[in-house]
């Protein structure tokens, strides 16, 4: 109980700080932060599976893309409104993650990584193959006139920032609640010692499946929000690279912490942003970061913080 209150309070402070930042930051940086918050939601979804349940997926771009295309296709071809588009994105992500989870969870470890990678690759190729509807690599733009949610124009920079913040806040509280709940603690137990969890009477397979679905839907929500807020849907977001980004964000920020994904996304985004001004080979930074993190800080920034100064960090 105390744990739950402390966690909620901590998250509330974080959200208030992010809201305040909008009025302090110059326009360019608040624009970046809006994008970072949406990507951080993606990373939070990833973290639920990787950080808390201990399952390393290399195919989360499929869930991100499921949300993105679920919304995009519904708005583009069925002329649905934004709110129904979001619903379509969430349902698509739910179905995709339920099916992929059911299949991929028959494997574990390295095989799980490769199976998720292959499914995501098949999904990416399917988007290219169905180019007539998806416009393939080129992608398509969601018209400004459509990007309105209950009367609020989401193409406006200020509205966009707060829409991203609302999404981030909702997901942060959902994650905070999951982590403090018995369900979340069981996920940690599975990560720590799967056989022991099973022999305490937990249905491990079912918990893992629910974790994949929760993780997939949150990732899908990020994908749908990205399309709606930034008005573009494209196959790039389904590539292997977009499966690796959340892994990178979470590793950098700290796996198995609620704020790690945000910290990791902020750092990585600025690192790449900065280096892409210097060279077109900006992904070099991502590569170097991945190697250094696995070598020297497998706990990430928030993980080190928890270990050294703030053991209560959720």
């Amino acid at each position, binding site marked *: 109980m105390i744990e739950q209150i402390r966690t909620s309070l901590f998250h509330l402070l974080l959200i208030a700080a992010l809201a305040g930042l909008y009025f302090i930051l110059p326009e360019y940086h608040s624009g970046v932060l809006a994008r970072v918050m949406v990507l951080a939601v993606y990373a939070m979804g990833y973290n639920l599976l990787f950080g808390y349940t201990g399952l390393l997926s290399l195919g989360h771009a499929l869930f991100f893309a499921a949300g993105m295309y679920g919304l995009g296709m519904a708005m583009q071809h069925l002329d649905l409104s934004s709110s129904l588009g979001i619903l379509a994105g969430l349902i698509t992500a739910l179905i995709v993650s339920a099916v992929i989870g059911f299949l*991929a969870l028959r*494997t574990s470890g*390295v095989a799980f990584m*490769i199976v998720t990678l292959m*499914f995501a690759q*098949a999904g990416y190729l399917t988007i290219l193959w169905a180019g007539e509807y998806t416009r393939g690599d080129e992608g398509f733009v969601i018209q400004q006139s459509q990007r309105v949610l209950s009367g609020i124009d989401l193409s406006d920079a200020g509205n966009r920032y707060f829409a991203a913040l609302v999404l981030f806040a909702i997901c942060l509280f959902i994650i905070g609640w999951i982590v403090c709940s018995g369900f979340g603690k069981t996920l940690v137990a599975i990560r720590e010692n799967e056989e022991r969890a099973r022999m305490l009477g937990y249905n491990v397979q079912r918990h893992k499946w629910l974790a994949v679905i929760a993780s997939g839907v949150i990732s899908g929500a990020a994908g749908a929000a990205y399309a709606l807020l930034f008005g573009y849907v494209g196959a790039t977001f389904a590539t292997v690279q977009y499966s690796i980004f959340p892994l990178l964000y979470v590793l950098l920020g700290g796996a198995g912490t609620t704020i790690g994904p945000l910290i990791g996304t902020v750092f990585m985004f600025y690192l790449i942003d900065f280096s892409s001004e210097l060279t077109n*080979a900006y992904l070099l930074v991502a590569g*170097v970061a991945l190697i250094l*993190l*696995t070598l020297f800080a497998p706990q990430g920034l928030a993980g080190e913080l928890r270990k050294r100064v703030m053991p209560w960090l959720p």
Partner: protein
Amino acid sequence: MEFGPHFLLASLEGAVNAAVLALMAVGLSIVFGIMRVVNVAHGEFFMLGAVLAWWISSLVGAHPAYGFVVALIAAPLIVGAIAALADHFVLRRINYDPERTIVATIGLLYVLQQTTLMTFGPEARPVEAPFNKRIALPWFEKTAEGFSMYWPWGLGTTTYKLAVIAAAAVILIGLWIFMTRSRIGLIMRATQLDSEMALAYGIPVDRVYALVFGMGAAIAALAAVLVVPIQQAHYLMGHDPLLLSFIVVIIGGLGSIPGTIVAAILIGMSDGIISVFFSPTVAKILATLLVAFVLIFRPQGLFGKRVA
């Protein structure tokens, strides 16, 4: 062209694919078989081999054959050395933990690929083949007087492509002899069976691992040097071969070299043949799904035996 000649052409192209793929995949398979790690940067070692082949042959100048021969020896050695260094400074330090190794080799993938982009640039660059004589191929036709032979337009191959197939076969046989007959091969296999026991018997497991990792990368580079006169060198060229060799290694049964070769021939040939008749995208979708389902329902590979 009619179906028959078209099919023969597709099979010949497929055989070249299969030869290169078999080399790539065996490199990946040896590393997995002996070290039990998945090297995601394998495609980048292939790419490095091709880029180095371009660099070396343009340095040597002279007749294309000289440059090519130098590249054939030097590129695999350089790539192997880079891989051995990566093993020493990265993989060894994380104790070859399977999951962390994948993350680290993804990092390595970006480092190699992006460094190549910074130095070599984004262009695709050709390497001239040492010899390249066109051979027209005949086809048979049933006429009123029985079978007669003719030369359909467009049906043919080059001496170089045939040489690639032959070279791959020779390298694979050589590798087989090396692994089964030589002392180093024996040491590698002993390490594969039980690395702790091998260590107890005084085998320097660290050095064996560096050697194996280097050798796997060198084989990929060798495949790239062979293929670069047909394909051109480009900094993103490692992606498709990586995916295909993954597919081959998994379908052939993780770590089994004969299974890998059979699967490489099967996939290489069918990829060539399918892509002539179907959209290559559909072929790739089917192939990736096949890998996923093989891993889920038959993890020992299509040709492997189930281990109890």
